[in-house]
């Protein structure tokens, strides 16, 4: 019997443990994780592959995090089923862990499309440290890699592979890379720096099948694209995206859409059962609706909200949105909210574009409120813009300064300056 049981010990699980301990220093916590050492930063797996970070550097919490927080960490274990009537989690070897409050923080798993050849040796997904370790080992004797998918994960693994000296071809079904984050002006800048680094970018196509080597069909030898081109390679990284790991609740009374449906207290429809992180559909304040937002910082924040509520401190989630900060081939990029609206006439769009400096700034306004932010190669003011956006501040009086070099907190209305900057509680 454990007062709190958490299935999954990555971002959301870690956030939940910290929040529970803030509220309840003594209630027993059990965490179940398939991984042996789960408190590492998943976004850093590319740094592991490139050689920039050791596994030790990837520890995003102290080595004794579980002990220090008096958590019973069942690592290397799998939760196999849930029983909401008797309130327990069944584990792989048949044991049961009873709970008073349960958090499902099982995260996501890489999406691998149905395609011939994905079972060959040399095909990798890229979301966990074990993926990264397998890939890093393979690179010792690889020369050419194909990355399928040019989103967050695909571009970051591409950079790691380039740093390891491989020839990389990245294949993206959309017409531009990073299409969920950037418009074409923004992605052009990143495409250019990638090409300069030697990456071959193929857009508007996908990989149709993966073909074995002539001498060994079990091992990756090339990929064939939708238009028929064949690209020789010895490693293929599938980085199309992640899907929620909902298998634990499939067929139970927990309501599911694409992910687990939760309210703003991270509660599911089943009493005492909460969900957070990549497995849950959480509130997007830009779209004013819940949806999958599989992003590390949001998962931590959602886990904290779940933890507070599980421990009895009623806490409402203020919401997240599609927001990412990245650095690709030395160029910092921050993208938040609706950065590339389809019907441009419905919005006011402020743009500063200096491609020779790799500089691009774009703020999307609706009714004088910020709903989208793109900053490429000058990101220092991102947080203030994000604050104005999230708090729906009317920026009419200073909107033309938002993308200027001179933008400053001193431009904010006096009332906002006082509450935000000067008094500061």
């Amino acid at each position, binding site marked *: 019997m454990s007062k709190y049981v958490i299935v999954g010990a990555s971002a959301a699980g870690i956030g939940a443990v910290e929040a529970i301990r803030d509220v309840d220093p003594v209630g027993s916590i059990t965490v179940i994780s398939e991984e042996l050492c789960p408190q590492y*930063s998943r*976004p850093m797996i590319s740094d592991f592959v490139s050689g920039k970070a050791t596994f030790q550097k990837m520890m995003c919490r102290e080595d004794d995090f579980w002990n220090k927080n008096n958590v019973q960490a069942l690592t290397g274990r799998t939760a196999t089923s849930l029983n909401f009537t008797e309130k327990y989690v069944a584990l792989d070897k048949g044991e049961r862990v009873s709970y008073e409050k349960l958090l499902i923080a099982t995260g996501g798993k890489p999406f691998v499309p149905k395609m011939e050849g994905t079972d060959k040796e040399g095909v990798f997904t890229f979301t966990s440290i074990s993926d990264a370790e397998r890939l890093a080992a393979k690179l010792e004797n690889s020369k050419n890699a194909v990355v399928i998918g040019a989103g967050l994960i695909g571009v970051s693994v591409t950079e790691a592979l380039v740093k390891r000296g491989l020839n990389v071809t990245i294949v993206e079904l959309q017409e531009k890379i990073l299409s969920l984050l950037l418009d074409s002006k923004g992605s052009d800048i990143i495409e250019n720096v990638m090409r300069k680094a030697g990456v071959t970018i193929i857009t508007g196509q996908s990989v149709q099948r993966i073909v074995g080597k002539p001498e060994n069909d079990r091992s990756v030898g090339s990929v064939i694209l939708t238009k028929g081109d064949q690209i020789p390679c010895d490693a293929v990284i599938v980085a199309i995206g992640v899907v929620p790991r909902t298998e634990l609740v499939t067929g139970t009374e927990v309501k599911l859409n694409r992910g687990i449906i939760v309210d703003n207290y991270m509660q599911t429809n089943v009493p005492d059962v909460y969900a957070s992180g990549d497995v849950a559909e959480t509130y997007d304040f830009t779209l004013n609706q819940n949806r999958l937002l599989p992003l590390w*910082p949001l998962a931590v924040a959602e886990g904290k909200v779940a933890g507070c509520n599980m421990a009895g401190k009623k806490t409402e989630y203020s919401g997240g949105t599609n927001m990412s900060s990245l650095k690709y081939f030395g160029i910092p990029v921050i993208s938040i909210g609706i950065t590339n609206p389809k019907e441009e006439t419905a919005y006011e769009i402020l743009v500063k574009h200096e491609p020779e400096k790799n500089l691009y700034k774009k703020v999307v306004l609706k009714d004088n409120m910020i709903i989208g932010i793109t900053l490429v190669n000058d990101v220092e003011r991102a947080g*203030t813009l994000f604050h104005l956006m999230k708090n729906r501040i009317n920026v009419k009086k200073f909107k033309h300064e938002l993308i200027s070099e001179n933008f400053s907190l001193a431009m904010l209305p006096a009332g906002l300056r006082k509450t*935000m*900057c*000067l008094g500061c509680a």
Partner: protein
Amino acid sequence: MKRIIANEEVCMGCGLCEVYCTVQHSKSKDIVKAYNKESPRPISRVRLEVAKPVSFAIQCRNCEDAPCVSACLSGAMTKDEKTGLVTHNKDKCIGCWTCVMVCPYGALKTDVSGKVVAKCDLCQELETPACVANCPNRALTVKEVKP
């Protein structure tokens, strides 16, 4: 915990806060050497915000529920439970700028290396932070607050 409070009514916008912050975070701690000899020159952790006639200086607020700590991908940004200080570990920082994305104050800056974040540390080795001690018109003051 100390918190630095800015009073825009008496700020002259002279920028000495930035100068003395730079000196305090230099190797020599000497204003002439820091500005003329140290290359690259250390950056100021405090930022003078100007939109004339308004000006004031701002640095890390050590927020109670610090968004930078929660968002940090690598665990470099932590909040000391006892002192309330938000502390940044350069060795763990990966320069992803996720903290920059969520700090309302723009208090996190790119360090001179371009690879990690630099932030106010409230001048731990000084009785009074350098920006406060050297503000000629007492537009910056220190208030003791509960961590």
